[in-house]
């Protein structure tokens, strides 16, 4: 019982995001003019890519860093996908592997620059992001390409006509990728580095490997996001990632992960992404002009941020708040 209370308190950020998500979902269902399962499916698909990107962004943020190239990696992998994901099942399978590998390599490059180049993540990934965008434009100068429709339908429809497929993708990723990572020495290292790099180093934690893993993981999820976007649009777009980078950071914060690193988790980021997405729909249906939507999105983000700053109230030495 006591354990449960402690665990709930530790995950309060993610739980707040879940509550916010649930409330918005109910509002969405109520005010949707013609609500049916198809509308739910469409919403799940619209938020799918952002959710995947936000999951990736969570990892560098947990280390106290940031990945500003994540949208560019998504666009690059999306563009490559629009070249490779056609033909025989074997060709498609190889194409999938190649796209995911590309994402991981991009992430690893970010990690190497941050860890060994000792460049601050925010600027290192801003620079590599430009490089990845350039590569994406070489691969796909104009939006287009081709992606296997059968696979696309499988990914973007609903299972038994009720539960959208992306939900299963998220559950699968959390169970098969995130939980094992979180319980590994590397995963522990990701949290440890973000919490106190010096203490982590002094405890013999593999600090460098943890950072490399975080950025590589970010690239991995970015590639999944790029693939998902491809299945949704059936094409590739080298400039498709622009808005995703900053929205992914917003989703991570709403999901309860601290930008200082050390606390939070990947699951909350999924809710965070869908909170952002559903707000758009809700605002649309409630008659708010689309031009005013950023204003409301911003207001919601500010509320979420204030909630995450509540812990600072208890600190009595004001220098510690700034440290």
């Amino acid at each position, binding site marked *: 019982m*006591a354990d449960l209370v402690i665990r709930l308190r530790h995950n309060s950020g993610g739980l707040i995001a879940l509550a916010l998500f649930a409330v918005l979902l109910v509002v969405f269902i109520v005010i949707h003019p013609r609500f049916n399962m198809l509308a739910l499916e469409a919403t799940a698909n619209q938020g799918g890519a952002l959710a995947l990107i936000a999951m990736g962004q969570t990892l560098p943020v947990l280390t106290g860093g940031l990945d500003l190239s994540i949208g560019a990696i998504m666009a690059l992998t999306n563009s490559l996908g629009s070249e490779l994901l056609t033909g025989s099942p074997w060709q498609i399978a190889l194409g999938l592997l190649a796209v995911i590998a590309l994402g991981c390599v991009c992430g690893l490059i970010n990690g190497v620059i941050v860890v060994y180049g000792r460049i601050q993540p925010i600027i290192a990934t801003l620079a590599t992001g430009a490089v990845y965008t350039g590569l994406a434009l070489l691969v796909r100068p104009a939006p287009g390409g081709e992606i296997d429709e059968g696979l696309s339908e499988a990914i973007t429809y609903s299972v038994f006509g009720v539960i959208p497929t992306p939900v299963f993708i998220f559950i699968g990723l959390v169970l098969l990728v995130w939980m094992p990572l979180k319980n590994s020495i590397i995963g522990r290292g990701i949290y440890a580095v973000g919490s106190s790099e010096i203490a982590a180093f002094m405890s013999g934690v593999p600090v460098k490997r943890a950072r490399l893993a975080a950025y590589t993981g970010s690239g991995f999820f970015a590639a999944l996001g790029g693939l998902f976007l491809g299945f949704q649009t059936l094409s590739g777009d080298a400039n498709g990632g622009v808005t995703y980078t900053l929205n992914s950071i917003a989703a991570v914060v709403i999901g309860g992960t601290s930008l200082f690193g050390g606390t939070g988790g990947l699951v909350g980021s999924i809710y965070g992404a869908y909170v952002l997405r559903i707000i758009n729909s809700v605002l649309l249906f409630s008659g708010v002009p689309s031009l005013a939507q950023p204003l409301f999105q911003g207001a919601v983000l500010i509320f979420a941020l204030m909630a995450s700053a509540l812990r600072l109230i208890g600190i009595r030495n004001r220098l510690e708040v700034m440290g």
Partner: protein
Amino acid sequence: MRDAQSDPAFLSMEGISKHYGGVVALDDVHFACQRHSIHAVLGENGAGKSTLIKIMAGVARADTGRMMLEGKEVHHFTPVDATRAGIVCIFQELSLMPDLSVADNICITNPPGRRGFIAQRAQRQRAESLLARVGCNDVNPISRVRDLPLSRRQLVEIAKALGRAPKLLILDEATSALTAADVEKVFAILRTLRDQGTAILYISHRMAEIEAIADHCTVFRNGRYIQTFRQGERTPEQVVQLMIGREITQIYPPKPKPRALPEPALEVDNLAWEDRLNGISFSIRPGEIVGLGGLDGQGQREILLGLFGVLRGLKGSVKLYGRDAAVRSPATAKHPKNAIAMIPEDRKTEGLMLPMSIRDNLSIASLSRFVKTGVINRSLESTRVDAMIETMRIKIGAPSDPVRTLSGGNQQKVVIGKWLMTEAKVLLLMDPTRGIDVGTKQEIYALMRKLADDGAAILFYSTDYDELIGMCDRISILYHGEIIRTLVGDDITEQNIVAASLNVDLGKRATQTTGAAHG
């Protein structure tokens, strides 16, 4: 306990020297620690104890000298090598990760599990058993370290160290926040470890603890090895004498004769904050320099921060110039009606904005004086800044150079000058001469005395006893957040300061110290 001297040393050092910039931290040190022995290391602040430990842990590297592990010389010793050799340190600054759970922290160096994956249940069980060993059954292993009080954190730290099966266990002030009962439990564990063959280095400023636990003692002074003896072979008086040595230099301005002084500028009554300050009362008249002494971290820093409005929830009353003052932030502290200035401890982070110019740094605290209709009057600012550079004799190229380009001593002069420009009447000085050369020190001492003579009330915290003796009209010694003794006039001697700092009453210690130190 076995006779430790008959065993070969687990770790020994020969001719170790270490410099930080121009400061000699260790000078030709010889040291050895044996298995089956608890070895206390004694010395004043800055005697070199911390550096010694850092070298053993592979965190710092000696400039010269050799280190032997079980008789074999080691080269390029890193923290990883130290861990592999079974050297485990419990540092003064806690090495826990605040956002991770207690169990995560305890098992972080070697988590249970296979192929890089951590077995949660096994980890929890291990954490529980280690916590039970240090008497911490009340701590839930899944709670976050951030949420624990300092005393529990120290025990978690000890549990973490035990989990690594140390061959050499180093405790650096590792019991400073523990109650007497907790300390007893830790001591029982240490004795068991010793009997099983672990070498233990124990660093503490509490004499009573050292008498209770140590088998051997080594004294350091000013980075030099002084002496090693078996516990009990020296009286506490002799140990204190060894720690302070005999080196007195005359670089201080003469103190004024006792004289009639105006009403106090600062009166503090019954100040308390969290568990760090308790019942602090004192007053300072214009013209006085009052010292805060004692060991590091006994609450001196908190007194100054509290008076400067940095701490929330400060209790007690503070009067300035005879009236009640509510100083809630540094901004109100420096307001002309309060006229408080603080020279912070760390000039690089708290004192200066390193990339900004010397001029901008000097004027930043007194900008409101140069503002005319919302705009800074640049020429007036420049005039005043130039005058201050002149007064302080700061050696600079141009006032527009970044302050980062100055030497440490001149940087410190900029910090002081910045606050003098506010024409403060109450000066709070936090270790203002740390890490600067003797010549500049002397200038700062002369300046302090001049400011006092011109009517400033000065509260002066220093870790250097010599400096306190040379400068202060009165010295209050802090111990565990309380003023345990105030020394005036001829009572201001190094011996009295050291004794009060350690809470040893040299006259009648047998009856008092044990109770007081554990109280």
